[in-house]
């Protein structure tokens, strides 16, 4: 090869080197067949380029490994954190359970001694009752959270008037025991006639639960001033949105904690012990999400906190499916002595309780320990009504009611369900029951439900 070709070859080598300098490691020099010094140079450069690319690849790999390591470390920390939270939860929980248990067992023991005045006994009983209610709330919280987290929460949506919903939430929370203990704290409702024509499509049970949680928190963390509940209507990008708020003048929440408090078992104030398990807000957020809403807060430490929850709403056109279910007034005393009621219940204490509740009304009562026993009873004599426990051995409530309807018995059957089954009420009715009462049993509600289905002409 002549000299000018050599010059060209050198120029090509330079071009390749320049590309490599710019970070392109995919280039290679072409070799002639000469196997001369220039080819040797080209070959050497090619191998050096390979080495460079190899190193760059390695570096990239390293970067990836480092990133993976960071992720792993985070995951590990998260696992440790959740471990820590779990034990904090257990400590809290055992305190939360022990405190009411202590009241229940302690006051029961005193009552058993039977040496106190009527008035004192009533006081002890009310302590026992409120401790029991407290325990129940705790259990319900845990059930709700586990349902939310395992995506088993069922939602039953209907159209409800915003104004009615606000009224009801207010009526319920007005009765809050803690509020009664805080004379310098006022609960204020800001309802507006504008809301009368506005409807949201929601699950009213869960809707109320959201605001009861928020208002309870507001009351718990505020000593004096007010807790205000209200709503505002806005239109964002052509979408009608209603933003409910719960505003308090309490201790406030530091900005750094605004996210964290929504996590389960999290409490902002870890130094000072305030009762609670830190489940409320994580349940609340879970419910808001489930109902397609948004939740956020504004707060200043020492000044107060406002929680906002927004949902889409519609105006007027839609007729509400039903007036919201308010607690009906207790019925006037009914004489049930002409009626026979069968109770299917495997737990003797629950049975005893039901019998005690029904005793004053005079109904004739027969007892079955499970579904098949109940069916035997029915074969001998038909009742006017059956109170059917759903959680029973041998033959459970579902199987029993199906069998009853299959045999063409038409008498009313009222199911007794637990809180965990609260979402299954539709299914219970579908299976053939006429109504349901939920445990723990509220005496007034039981009587109401029984009277409703017995078809008494008064």
């Amino acid at each position, binding site marked *: 090869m002549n000299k000018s070709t050599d010059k060209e070859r050198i120029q090509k080598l330079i071009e390749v080197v320049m590309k490599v300098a710019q970070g392109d490691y995919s280039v290679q020099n072409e*070799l002639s067949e000469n*196997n*001369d*010094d220039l*080819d*040797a*140079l080209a*070959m*050497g450069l*090619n*191998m050096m380029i*390979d*080495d460079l690319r*190899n190193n760059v690849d390695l570096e990239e790999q390293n970067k990836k490994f480092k990133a993976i390591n960071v992720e792993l470390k985070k995951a590990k920390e998260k696992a440790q954190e959740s471990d820590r939270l779990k034990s904090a939860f257990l400590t809290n929980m055992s305190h939360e359970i022990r405190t009411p248990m202590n009241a229940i067992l302690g006051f029961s023991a005193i009552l058993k001694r039977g040496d106190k005045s009527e008035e004192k006994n009533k006081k002890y009983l009310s302590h026992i009752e409120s401790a029991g209610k407290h325990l129940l709330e705790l259990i319900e919280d845990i059930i709700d959270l586990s349902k939310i987290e395992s995506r088993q929460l069922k939602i039953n949506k209907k159209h409800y008037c915003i104004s009615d919903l606000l009224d009801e939430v207010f009526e319920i929370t007005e009765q809050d025991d803690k509020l009664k203990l805080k004379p310098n704290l006022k609960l204020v409702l800001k309802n507006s006639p504008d809301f009368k024509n506005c409807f949201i499509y929601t699950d009213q049970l869960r809707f109320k639960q959201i605001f009861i949680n928020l208002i309870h928190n507001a009351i718990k963390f505020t000593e004096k001033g007010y807790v205000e509940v209200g709503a505002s209507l806005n239109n964002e990008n052509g979408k009608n949105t209603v933003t409910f708020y719960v505003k308090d003048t309490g201790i406030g929440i530091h900005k750094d904690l605004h996210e964290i408090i929504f996590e389960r078992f999290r409490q902002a104030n870890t130094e000072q012990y305030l009762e609670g398990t830190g489940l409320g807000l994580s349940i609340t957020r879970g419910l808001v999400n489930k109902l397609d809403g948004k939740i956020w807060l504004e707060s200043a430490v020492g000044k107060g906190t406002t929680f906002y929850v927004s949902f889409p709403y519609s105006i007027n056109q839609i007729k509400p499916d039903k007036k919201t279910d308010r607690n009906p007034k207790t019925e006037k005393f009914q004489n049930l002595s002409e009626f026979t009621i069968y109770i299917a219940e495997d737990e003797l204490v629950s049975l005893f309780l039901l019998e005690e509740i029904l005793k004053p009304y005079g109904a004739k009562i027969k007892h079955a320990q499970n579904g098949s026993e109940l069916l035997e009873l029915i074969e001998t004599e038909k009742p006017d009504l059956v109170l059917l426990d759903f959680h029973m051995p041998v033959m459970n409530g579902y199987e029993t009611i199906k069998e009853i309807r299959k045999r063409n018995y038409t008498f009313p059957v009222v199911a007794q369900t637990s809180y965990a089954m609260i979402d299954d009420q539709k299914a219970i009715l579908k299976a053939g029951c006429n109504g349901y009462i939920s445990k723990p049993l509220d005496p007034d509600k039981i009587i109401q439900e029984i009277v409703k289905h017995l078809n008494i002409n008064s």
Partner: protein
Amino acid sequence: MAIKIKIKQNGGKEFLIEENKIWIIENNIIYIEANGEQTVEIAALHLELDKLLQKQIQGKLNYLINLNRAGKSSPAARKVWQKISESETTLKVALFGVHPVARILATFVMGVTNKKDIRFFNTKNEAILWLKS
């Protein structure tokens, strides 16, 4: 990709790994004629073949590698060559080639090994002499 075996007219065996030809000379020298680009897959097959040949040869192995028609070897392939040359069963490694490209190739391979008894020669004869010395 696999090791292929060819029986020569004199009854000796010749092995083929892609374009590379391998056979045993002088009882304990593995002769490799490296042809074309040397990838890591090829190098790995050489490692396999060495294990096979070790069983046939008494004592340690010498390598004689003809680089006259060899192409470049990739960084990963060079790591395998390093392993072969540094192996306990390897005595000496002689590389040879007449032109500057062969020398460069040899330099790259020798650059990655810590072996002392590895050298480059211009001719096959010089290389064999050193191996036998």
